[in-house]
């Protein structure tokens, strides 16, 4: 028998400018299989947009992206760094959709698939990210390297049963 599966867990709206947002106390695998995070960002300027899990600030993350803008395509890779990337922020509105796959599995590194779009600025991106840890995700911190996330930026977190 099919069961309702795509469950909204939290919505956060930034009221005053911030540099990071932390989600914690994330329920475990008994509840959900994947997490989907949708962020709708406006920032004070262009900056890389990143995520860390479980407070891990070690060089345990790697990311790869392919990017298309108005004139060219680009792919780059960053192995063994202290966070994984979700795109850029900009003064133009951007949307970022993360699939954090099997986030509670303790036999897998975590793969995070990201689609990021800032159509009025940096272009459209897709990412394959890996957090080299078999720990279940219990928290994550989203941050930008410079500038701030502006009022009106929103985050919507969903749990997918499975």
């Amino acid at each position, binding site marked *: 028998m*099919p*069961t*309702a*599966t*795509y*469950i*909204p*867990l*939290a919505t*956060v709206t930034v009221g*005053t*400018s*911030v*540099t*990071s*947002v*932390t*989600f*914690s*106390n*994330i*329920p475990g695998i008994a509840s959900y*299989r*994947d997490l989907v995070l949708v962020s709708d960002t406006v920032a004070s300027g262009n900056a890389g947009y990143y995520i860390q899990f479980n407070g891990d600030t070690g060089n345990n993350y*790697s*990311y*790869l*992206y*392919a*990017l*298309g803008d108005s004139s060219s*395509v*680009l*792919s780059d*890779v960053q*192995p063994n760094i202290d966070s994984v990337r979700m795109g850029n922020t900009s003064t133009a509105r951007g949307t970022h959709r993360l*699939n954090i*796959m*099997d986030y509670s*599995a303790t*036999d*897998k*590194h975590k*793969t995070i*698939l990201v*689609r990021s779009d800032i159509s009025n600025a940096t272009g459209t991106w*897709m*990412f*394959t*990210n*890996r957090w080299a840890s*078999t720990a279940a995700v219990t928290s994550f*911190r989203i941050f930008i390297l410079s500038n*701030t996330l502006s009022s009106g930026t929103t*985050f919507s977190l*969903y*749990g*997918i*049963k*499975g």
Partner: protein
Amino acid sequence: MTLSALGIFSAAGAGGVAGGTYELIESNILTGNQASIDFSNLGTYSSTYKHLQLRVTGRSTTTFGNENDSFYIRLNADSGSNYSFHQLFGNGSSVSSAGSTSQTYAALLMMASNGAGASIFGAGVVDILDSYSTSKNKTMRSFTGVYVNTQRFAMIRSSAWLSTASITSITVGSIDGSMVAGTRLSLYGVK
């Protein structure tokens, strides 16, 4: 300044609002190596769902691709040359595209293989659109990727199954080996 959502999940209503338009049909976590898996009797849901979505984290036994392997999808057990695909992908140094016709499967999922480091799995999400239409060839699209030491990809793919038949089964398997224990395949219906 940090905005914290601390404790929000232990708040009342943490179970959330039931997402009644997106439902789990079946989930499989392999307990041993397995060449393929079938989602069958899907015709049961023809009046319930418009689209289907497959979510996978996977790894295969093959060493053919060194660090990665593709998982294939066949609809209604059709192994004829009735599939085509296009893809756009980045490998960390360049972006390229490819496509082909008359394929015997839809290779929509890029996964890790036996040559990858321990605990590394690929991941992918596949949408199977208008699954039960009897007037349209079926379109599938995926967003998939794997990050391994030397072979890593971010990829979007689309595939057509040149049949107007309503979908009754989906077969997923490793092209060059078997799917390993721990591989997870979950099928959802979208109303």
